[in-house]
């Protein structure tokens, strides 16, 4: 299978429908197909082994994704926010690549051209897209929040399974549009392109997120759908204050890619009362979404007086019909509902492999996400951090999530990160970096007493440090490695 089929079908069935709006430029599906054929011709002319993309989102990114597929080489989007030496280290891992970039990059074995040059008039590759068994569509460098970035491999078969299993062809109305704010190097940036093209939903690209600009573009383009990472949604709610925006075209707002604080979700629902909210949980290694908390779940939870029902807003929902999710204990055995453990996932969209490391799938096809969580009796999945973030205090495993939840419930605590800190007696103990609301005065002893009143004494942070802000990366991932380093100093 080959992803290029998705674009061919769209161009064939709705060639004059607008595919991409970027600034004042509109490109229809026939135009995107033609651009992708030119991209493929450029890849083949340089005999490139990969097509890498190091630039902000723009029309060249979807053309590069599909053009690489047609040329039969992996598409490798790279994080343009990385430092110069980090980018150099990644480029050294993809020799022979053709690199699309505006930046002045010189790297051995890499040929560069700008996004404008990639899209410019030129030869078109007229051939059929190759159908290589287990052909690689995308290589995505993981964000490396815990170590050096790994190159996750997504094969055509994985991404096709995700799209065909979750998106209805031409399911969008011609007037629909989705606003794309996630960067091209994020798996959600890849799935946004594939889903939108297959659904026939116009992509309005916003390369540099800003809440005011986001609202202006939603109004200007009559945007119907949006996907945001939690930090973006939080910034929009802060930008709005208590005044709901006038965005009558907006029908659906999906979010995912990191932990969504309950308060932000509730506030967002109140600010966008008519909008359908969907929480999507997925990983790079699973070709994006594997579980969904849908609009009805959101409304029921928001309106509920019963705290147990209300808590469902903190769930990431139920597994897609095409995916199985299972919780296992440390010995690898499945556990029953309500019992916490390691999250495993299986399905055709699950890739679970890295360049140089091979497949992490077990003999039965299950992928260990390294996320911790539990599933309730109705099949709703709740996440509780990463296995790698567990604090091991004197042989006792402590998950930061429950401690963070207690601290966040304090009226003056705005954000918190609980991490392991070195401890001479226990090996590790609990440390907390706490962001207080502006002007608030809260002591460490007060917060320690709060935790002691709710949880076992081993959970009480031995070290609490008040900080101005926590370190997040641009897509809303908390950089626990940085917090750990700061608190251990």
């Amino acid at each position, binding site marked *: *299978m*080959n992803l290029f*089929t998705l674009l*061919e*079908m769209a161009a*064939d*069935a709705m060639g004059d429908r607008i595919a991409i709006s970027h600034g004042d430029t509109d490109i229809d599906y026939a135009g995107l197909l033609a651009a992708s054929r030119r991209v493929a011709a450029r890849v083949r002319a340089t005999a490139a082994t990969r097509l890498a993309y190091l630039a902000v989102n723009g029309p060249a990114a979807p053309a590069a994704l599909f053009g690489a597929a047609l040329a039969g080489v992996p598409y490798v989007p790279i994080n343009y926010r990385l430092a110069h030496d980090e980018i150099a280290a990644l480029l050294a891992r993809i020799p022979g690549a053709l690199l699309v970039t505006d930046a002045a990059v010189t790297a051995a074995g890499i040929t560069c051209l700008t996004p404008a040059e990639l899209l410019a008039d030129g030869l078109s590759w007229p051939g*059929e897209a190759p*159908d290589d*068994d287990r052909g690689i569509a995308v290589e995505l460098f993981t964000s490396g929040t815990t170590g050096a970035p790994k190159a996750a491999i997504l094969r055509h*078969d994985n991404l096709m399974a995700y799209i*065909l*299993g*979750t*998106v*209805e*062809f*031409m399911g969008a109305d011609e007037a629909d549009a*989705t606003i794309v704010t996630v960067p091209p190097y994020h798996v*959600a940036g890849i*799935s*946004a392109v*594939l*889903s*939108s093209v*297959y*659904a026939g*939903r116009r992509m309005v690209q916003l390369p540099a997120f800003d809440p005011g600009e986001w609202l202006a573009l939603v109004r200007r383009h009559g945007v119907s*759908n949006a*996907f945001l990472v939690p930090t973006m949604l939080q910034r929009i709610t802060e930008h709005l204050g208590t005044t709901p925006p006038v965005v009558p075209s907006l029908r*659906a707002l*999906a979010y*995912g890619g990191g932990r969504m604080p309950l308060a932000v979700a509730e506030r967002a629902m109140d600010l966008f009362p008519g909008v*359908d909210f*969907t929480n*999507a949980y*997925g990983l790079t290694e699973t070709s*994006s*979404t594997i579980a*969904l908390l*849908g*609009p009805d779940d959101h409304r029921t939870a928001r309106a509920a007086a019963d705290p147990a029902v209300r808590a469902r807003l903190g769930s990431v929902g139920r597994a*897609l*019909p095409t995916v199985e999710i299972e919780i296992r204990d440390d010995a690898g055995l499945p556990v029953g509902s309500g019992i916490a453990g390691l999250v495993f996932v299986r399905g055709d969209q699950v890739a679970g492999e890295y360049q140089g490391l091979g497949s992490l799938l077990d003999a039965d096809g299950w992928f260990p996400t390294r996320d911790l969580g539990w599933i309730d009796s109705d099949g709703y999945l709740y996440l509780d951090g990463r296995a790698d973030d567990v604090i091991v205090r004197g042989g006792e495993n402590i998950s930061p999530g429950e401690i963070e939840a207690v601290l966040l419930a304090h009226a003056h605590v705005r954000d918190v990160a609980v991490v392991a800190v070195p401890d001479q007696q226990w090996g590790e103990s609990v440390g907390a970096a706490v962001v207080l609301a502006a002007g608030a005065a809260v002591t460490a002893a007060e917060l320690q007493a709060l935790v002691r009143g709710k949880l076992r004494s081993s959970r009480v942070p031995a070290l609490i440090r008040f900080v101005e802000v926590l370190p997040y990366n641009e897509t809303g991932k908390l950089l626990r490695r940085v917090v750990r380093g700061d608190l251990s100093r």
Partner: protein
Amino acid sequence: MSVQYNIQYKAGAKLGSTVCDGQILVLRVPAVPIDLRIGGAPVAAANAGAERTAIDAALAGGIQTGKRYTDEAETMEFLCTRGGAGSISVNGAVLGIKAAKALPSSD
């Protein structure tokens, strides 16, 4: 059906009708040869310029772009990549549309 065209197909193969515009992509097939037809006539490689023959009026229900077609036991699955006037049949039995649960957009 007098002649059987039993062929072992593989996932990823793109096939075209010889009686209409219909094209399909093989998503999943059993590990045995099958007699795969659209509109009553054996399929050919897509875009191969095969000569058109007449559609079997009994197999003219049509296929729609973007729909997935499967047999009753769901042992095989084909994606219609271009609609056409003929129906897909395997070993004489017409395939039906695979029902898909509508999901909210999460991208």
